[in-house]
């Protein structure tokens, strides 16, 4: 009796395994080719493995430029973006991901990646910045830049070794720090001024800003303003890195 029950149970189990074999949880999923980089899924995977470390998860709140910024993506010329991803930016910490490096990515992949990025993050499409992404004028007035800086930037970006920052909130830190300016390109300065760091609270060129007294001012920066500001900030590359005695913060 017992053995008959046992046999029927066993037969049932075997039959169940036979029938359900295709639906068991251990069955490996069929191998599929990785999604193309020009789709949002393919783009997200590639971005997470190679870009998120510096540009932040989801394209914002990283130490490097936020890429989830429709205005930035619409304004930067396609070829410039391609060159940056492929070859990096010399003199800065943006590495090139294409070319002949060991983990190199083909040019087609980079183009698909850019399409995927714009599909994912350029929304709505076609919203360009008033000030062009690139360019810059060699005869921009440094004095004009200095004046502009004092009236439009210095409230959040005061100078002098950081001591003046202590009571200010929100504050953006010293952008005239010679060490900082030496580490970034003019284009980086220009991009930061035009597009801001809205994820960290820094306004873009068209956004309202805090005036010299902390008051809210709604007056967009023009192309000449941006050129002048970049020219002014670039002068700090040559500045001495020795602060005047007694000017440092107490730590």
């Amino acid at each position, binding site marked *: 009796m017992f053995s008959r029950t046992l046999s029927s149970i066993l037969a049932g*189990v075997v039959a169940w*395994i036979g029938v359900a*074999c295709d639906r*068991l*949880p*251990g*069955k*490996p999923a*069929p*191998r599929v080719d990785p999604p193309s980089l020009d789709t949002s899924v393919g783009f997200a995977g590639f971005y*997470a*493995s*190679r*870009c*998120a*470390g*510096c540009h*932040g*998860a989801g394209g914002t*709140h*990283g*130490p*490097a430029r936020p890429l989830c910024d429709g205005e930035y993506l619409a304004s930067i010329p396609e070829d410039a973006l391609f060159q940056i991803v492929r070859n990096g930016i010399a003199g800065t*910490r943006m*590495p090139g991901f294409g070319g002949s490096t*060991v*983990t190199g990515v083909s040019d087609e992949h980079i183009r698909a990646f850019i399409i995927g990025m714009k599909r994912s993050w350029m929304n709505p499409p076609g919203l360009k910045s008033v000030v062009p992404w690139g360019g810059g004028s060699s005869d921009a007035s440094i004095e004009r830049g200095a004046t502009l800086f004092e009236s439009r930037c210095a409230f959040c970006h005061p100078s002098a*070794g*950081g*001591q003046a*920052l*202590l009571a200010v*909130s*929100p*504050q*953006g*830190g*010293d*952008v005239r*720090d*010679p*060490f*900082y300016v*030496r*580490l*970034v390109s003019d284009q980086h300065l220009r991009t930061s001024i035009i597009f801001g760091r809205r994820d*960290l609270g820094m306004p873009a060129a068209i956004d309202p800003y805090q005036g010299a007294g902390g008051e809210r001012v709604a007056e967009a920066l023009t192309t000449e303003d941006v050129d002048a500001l970049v020219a002014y900030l670039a002068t700090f590359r040559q500045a001495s*890195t*020795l*602060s005047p*005695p*007694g*000017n*440092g*913060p107490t*730590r």
Partner: protein
Amino acid sequence: MGGTGWKHRALRCVHWLDDRTGVLWVLRHSMFHRVPSSAKWWYVFGSATMMFFMVQVASGIVLAMFYAPSAAQAYESLVYINERVPSGWMLRAIHGWSSNAMCLMMLVHLVQVFLHGTYKYPRELTWIFGVCLGVLTLGLAFTGQIMRWDADAYWGLGIGAAIVDRMPVFGDALRGIMLGGTQISGATLSRFFSLHVFILPGLTVALLGLHLYSILRKGISEMPKAGEVVDPATYAKGYEERVRKTGVPFYPDAARRDMVFCGAALIVLVGIAAWYGPMGPGALPDPTIIEASPRPDGLFLWIFAALALLPPSSETFLLLVGPPVAIALVALLPFIAPRGERAPSRRPLSVLLVCVLATGAGVLTWLGTLSPWSPVMDAWTSTPVAPEFVANRSPLALQGALEFQFAQCRNCHAIGGRGGMRGPDLTDVATRLSWDQLVRQIQQGGGNMPAYGKTLSSAETQALVAFLSTLDGNALRAVIPGAMEAQSSPDAMPVAAGTRPSSGDR
């Protein structure tokens, strides 16, 4: 009438076979020999090990019909078995998991035999054959891992070859024999295939025969009892007498327990195989992918951890001398302790030894899973700097965060609990090191950290230190609802974060 005729003819055949081979005597003796009646559930593990081996042989034969042992096709053929062969994935799962189960059962069997002192007189040879079977089983498991021919197999072979290469005098030649050339290639796979499919299973079957024969010849031991001492002068006679008087036939009395346990183990095996599926194949082998973190299967994780943690100066010696000496010691145990008490309660040293080894292997396996000594090679591009370490930072500190990623500090140092574990977590480094100490540590290295003085410019170092000096652990503050609001106000964030001290004192 016809039925009787068939029966008669069949019996004549059996008699003919028995006359020529003696098979009936062998069967009768092995099935109905008397075993001690005290041998109960503790004695099932050896049978279960053998059962798993038989499962391996059966599933392995079918797998070998589909597997292509060539470097170009091995991987594809595994995918083919997984996806195209009806229930092929299940077969691979059963083969892989029964390998683990066999190793596990073997280990339990070994520990049981050791703790019960069964290896003592007169079962020395049984023990030695068993130890050899254990080594073969590990060999089968390792070579089986190579059959997957994925990135893990590739790196496993690389590490194996590096170990062999360290052998003095013969190192080069042995590596050549192992790999079938100077590097891992199709010849390597062919060699490991023949080891896995012909040589090792053949040796295992032969040794298993000897193991079983010596069990039949000297009988299985009784359950140990405190006070019953093994004395070679009197043991054999006493054992035979006791078995004749109180013993029971192997079949059905003892075999029943074996069958019940093996049946249950088989059901569990099929369940695990159905639930967890086959092992691998993982990523394709690619020598140019330097991000791969080679890690062996669970069974070998403790060896992997031990190798990583050994002081480098002793590595070669311990790698080459340690395993042979350890195996020889275990194999010669019956000659080291041939007599005396068998009961674990009277052999505290043996129990302690098992406890220490089990704890050691457990801890090493756990460490092997974590492998905190390995840098996380892709952390610098794929592990984001969390928003709380970016907010309220000066532009220089933000550049420092970029340096932190770009210089691959993240691969060894975690912040916010994410990143490598090779170096200390830096989430609150600013509370431990001053600005100047940070500069010195980065430029000169020290304490297992390389010096970056020559690779980072002064501006880059300043930026990095500006960022590190903002890491004061605030992001780690304990959050107790309703209790900590006062401390977690924005003022508590590092104000003027990333600003450096007066340059005058640098």
